[in-house]
């Protein structure tokens, strides 16, 4: 798609030569910034994970010791298991709700202009802002359960946030609340991008609504599914303030996630080496998801 690739020519005039260099010059600062601030820092973190850094970085090499310790710490196990539960539920539920809302909103709904921002706004708020409200709402003594009791539904119980086994699901609820609207917007954009003639054709072919969606529309939303998956998995892995605001990792350590684990070890517990090794594992997980996706996407484009 090169607009000019006179690079392989002989005898190029100055203006053209400048024009050929300009794109590279323009991209260069971003490239430099990225090499230093992203990949340099990643390299630094990888290095730290092999040192005995505690409060501040140290350069004393200790080999795999931090990784060895990391996998012996019970909290890390919990954090990883929690992430597995959290990420899978979060991604699936967000996608389902997002898709459902998008399909419903796409039915020539009156008031779409009001509903859409309502669905979308939680993405605009940080959990520093909404954390307390969520905590109250989920707290059985003052929130939903209490309100139901006041309204006369005495047998109603909703005490997940206090329950070691269930607390992680309250994190899922709050996380779904925050991002499902965003997923809805992506699917809605995908739906609106589908050629109407195809739908008309399918309807003339006698496809029922169910089949229309299953066979015609959903397959065409594949790019939206992919984008949603990538954005959601990255949000899931990076989830931090959500947990801190809602449960602080509790009850006990029942809702710790790798991101909270990493922060706690690096900055609160002065075990920067172990914190770095957990960060490296997280980065590798992200890379395992992202690299194949990026490779497929970019190769296809080329």
């Amino acid at each position, binding site marked *: 798609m090169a607009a000019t690739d006179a690079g392989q020519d002989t005898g190029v005039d100055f203006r053209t030569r400048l024009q050929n260099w300009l794109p590279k010059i323009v991209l260069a600062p971003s490239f430099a910034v990225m090499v230093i601030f992203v990949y340099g820092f990643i390299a630094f973190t990888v290095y730290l994970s092999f040192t005995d850094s*505690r*409060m*501040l*970085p*140290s*350069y004393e090499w200790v080999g795999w010791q931090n990784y060895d*310790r990391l996998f*012996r*710490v*019970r*909290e890390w196990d919990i954090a990883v298991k929690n992430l597995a539960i959290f990420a899978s539920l979060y991604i699936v539920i967000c996608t389902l709700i997002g898709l459902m809302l998008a399909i419903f909103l796409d039915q020539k709904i009156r008031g779409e202009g009001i509903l859409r921002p309502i669905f979308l706004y939680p993405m605009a708020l940080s959990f520093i802002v909404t954390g307390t409200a969520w*905590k109250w709402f989920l*707290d*059985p*003594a003052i929130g939903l359960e209490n309100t139901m009791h006041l309204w006369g539904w005495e047998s109603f119980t909703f*005490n997940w*946030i*206090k329950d*070691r086994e269930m607390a992680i699901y309250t994190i899922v609820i709050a996380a779904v609340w925050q991002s499902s609207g965003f997923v809805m917007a992506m699917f809605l954009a995908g739906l609106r991008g589908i050629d109407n003639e195809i739908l008309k054709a399918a309807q003339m072919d006698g496809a029922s609504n169910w089949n229309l969606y299953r066979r015609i529309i959903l397959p065409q939303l594949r790019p939206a599914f992919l984008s949603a998956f990538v954005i959601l998995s990255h949000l899931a892995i990076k989830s931090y303030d959500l947990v*801190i605001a809602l*449960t*602080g*990792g*509790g*009850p*006990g*350590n*029942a809702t710790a996630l790798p991101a909270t684990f990493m922060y*706690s070890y690096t*900055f*609160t*517990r*002065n*075990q920067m080496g172990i914190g770095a090794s957990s960060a490296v594992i997280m980065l590798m997980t992200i890379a395992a998801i992202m690299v194949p996706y990026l490779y497929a996407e970019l190769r296809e484009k080329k």
Partner: protein
Amino acid sequence: MTILRKLQLSAAAVALSTTGVVAQEVEVLHWWTSGGEAAALNVLREDLAGSGIGWTDMPVAGGGGSDAMTVLRARVTAGDPPTAVQMLGFSIQDWAAEGALANLNDLAAEQNWDDVVPAALQRFSTYDGDWVAAPVNVHSTNWVWANTALMEELGIEQPGTWDEFVAAMQAAQDAGYTALAHGGQAWQDATIFDSMVMGVGGPEFYQAAMVDLDPEALGSAQMVEAFERMAVLRGFVDDNFSGRDWNLASAMVANGDALFQIMGDWAKGEFINAGQTAGEEFQCFRVPGTEGMVTFNSDQFAMFNVTDAAAMEAQTAMASAVMSPEFQVAFNTVKGSVPARTDISPEAFDACGQMGMAQLAEAAASGGLFGSMAHGHANNPSVQNAMYDVITAHFNGEYDAETAAQEMVTAVELAM
């Protein structure tokens, strides 16, 4: 260590290029950000303003100071440390070990700090015999807060032993009240655990287990007993305790919904805020079994290395102001804690405050004054948090007492 030296070199370079603009100023990193405690800190600011020293406020709340410590690390790494930083216990020692703190020996000698500050506090304010921090207050953490009206209604006397304490709570529970108001957060769990360890084993055992981290003490029968007492307390806590903020637990006592709360002396502010008076609507007494002993934490201002003379002067002035009796009184009456100096008149303090001051002096003299593990004054943060993990897991029913004691041994070993 070596990198920190390098950092300082660059810090010096930075300082050379930037200072000299404002004559005298202190930048203070702290997490006393709102309400009464921030207002109390303002006393200090105005004090300094009186001597022509500016105050750049750098408050970072959250996580009981852990966010502030993260920020501090960023600032030091950037070669731009604040003048003074609010700090707890072992953090001061860690930063001093990195060579990041200033030497206050001249001022301390001049003002005779060695004699007026209890030795147990000096353990944290000094490093290698050099003064590096100015202590602001002493919080004791082994207090029980009780609702007077409820005690009268249930016919309960102030309990003097563990058994009486349990009996009193049983009575409250039988009468349909919450016996023990508690918030299920790791540091709150650990706060009551401190008192249990102290109550079961006394000072020597506390020293061996929580400070010296002796594996034998950590896995001993006494430790099992301490955990069993935790389980007993768990039986008196209501079902909704998990994640509750400590001040909501205090409110339960103040409102007469709960009988007792085990909490540090900052809880007093909640009662006073509810319009109550110490010794009248609410009572304070030491956790039964820990009388004569005090587990404490102490907020201190650690002074960071500054390079030019004006900044050093301002820093010294600030340390001096922090240690002045006027500020110690003004601040601690608001904060609920007691002064870090033992030579201050208790007049200005309320009943609980006066009791606290007397007991602090007494414990300091008898060797019963110990840093609180829950508040980072018994061991370093990695061990502290490893203990948190075990205590919280046990309190939430994941371990029985035997397993918990065993887990203490392994968790501490891993964290060292």
